């Protein structure tokens, strides 16, 4: 113990010990705070990704009418759709209230996008944003069974054009 005079109430040792304890508690709390924030961010990201993936699934599969001429023969063409999504709505895409959606086709705003989604991109200050991007086949003409089977078996398929659907979700 350091020397002290009579009547001195707090020694330097005591003050130093208190300072070290407060510092240690501060470091622990800071560490806990960082872990909590990281966990929260991870959950928000996971939630937005799930909603974006789900919405893009609904957009492609609900709209899939590529096999209209031969769907009764047991054909279901996944990942093929027209580029008109106007019959869809935000609540059909399972985008909950409080979340916004924006749909683009090949990089441009979908002219016939789902009802209830935004017509402009997410604001620059949107903090939590997720994007799901899916390639899909857009039929160039009414798809016949012969064209479909030709496209399965070999090259030179002109029945479809590969397009890109992007669904952006934020809140």
């Amino acid at each position, binding site marked *: 113990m350091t020397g002290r005079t009579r009547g001195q109430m707090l020694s330097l040792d*005591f003050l130093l010990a*208190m300072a070290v304890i407060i510092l240690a508690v501060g470091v622990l709390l800071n560490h806990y705070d960082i872990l909590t924030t990281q966990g929260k961010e991870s959950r928000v990201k996971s*939630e937005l990704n799930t909603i974006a993936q*789900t919405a893009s699934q609904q957009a492609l599969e609900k709209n899939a009418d590529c096999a209209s001429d031969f769907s009764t023969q047991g054909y279901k063409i996944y990942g093929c759709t027209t580029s008109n999504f106007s019959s869809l709505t935000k609540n059909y895409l*399972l985008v*909950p209230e409080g979340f916004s959606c924006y749909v683009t086709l090949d990089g441009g705003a979908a002219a016939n996008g789902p009802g209830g989604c935004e017509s402009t991109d997410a604001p620059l200050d949107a903090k939590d944003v997720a994007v799901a991007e899916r390639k899909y086949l857009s039929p160039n003409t009414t798809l016949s069974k012969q064209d479909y089977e030709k496209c399965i078996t070999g090259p030179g398929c002109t029945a479809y054009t590969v397009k890109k659907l992007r669904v952006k979700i934020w809140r």
Partner: protein
Amino acid sequence: MAKGQTSIDLLLALLAAIVFMAVLNIYIGNLSQDAAQSSLRNSAKAILLDAYAATGEVKAYGLTIDYMPPQPAMPAPCSIEFDNDNSDAKTGLKVSLGGETAGYSGINFDDIKIGGSSLAGNNTATKPCNEKFTIGKA
């Protein structure tokens, strides 16, 4: 200072230690209560997201699945409500877990069947989290 006399420094140090420990104890008590609530809330959200994703898969691909919700870390009464009742304008999915709730509203389950019953026509279905049930496309 006379022999055997307790110094004022020691008394102050003891007092400070007691006050510090008391405050720390209250803080840790609150923290553990917050942590328990937070854990329940996070578990409810995890169940919600899992049920939401499963329903989305079913709806998109026309599947029928046996669905078992993920089990929360802390045991508590838990249920999942699929609400397709448009009359209250709040259709959606809600998870209740030990007093905490998490939900999504404004989503459409018209073509979903829970446990074989269709939700079309303003129907609702509530299932406990600890039981397996089927989610199918109507």
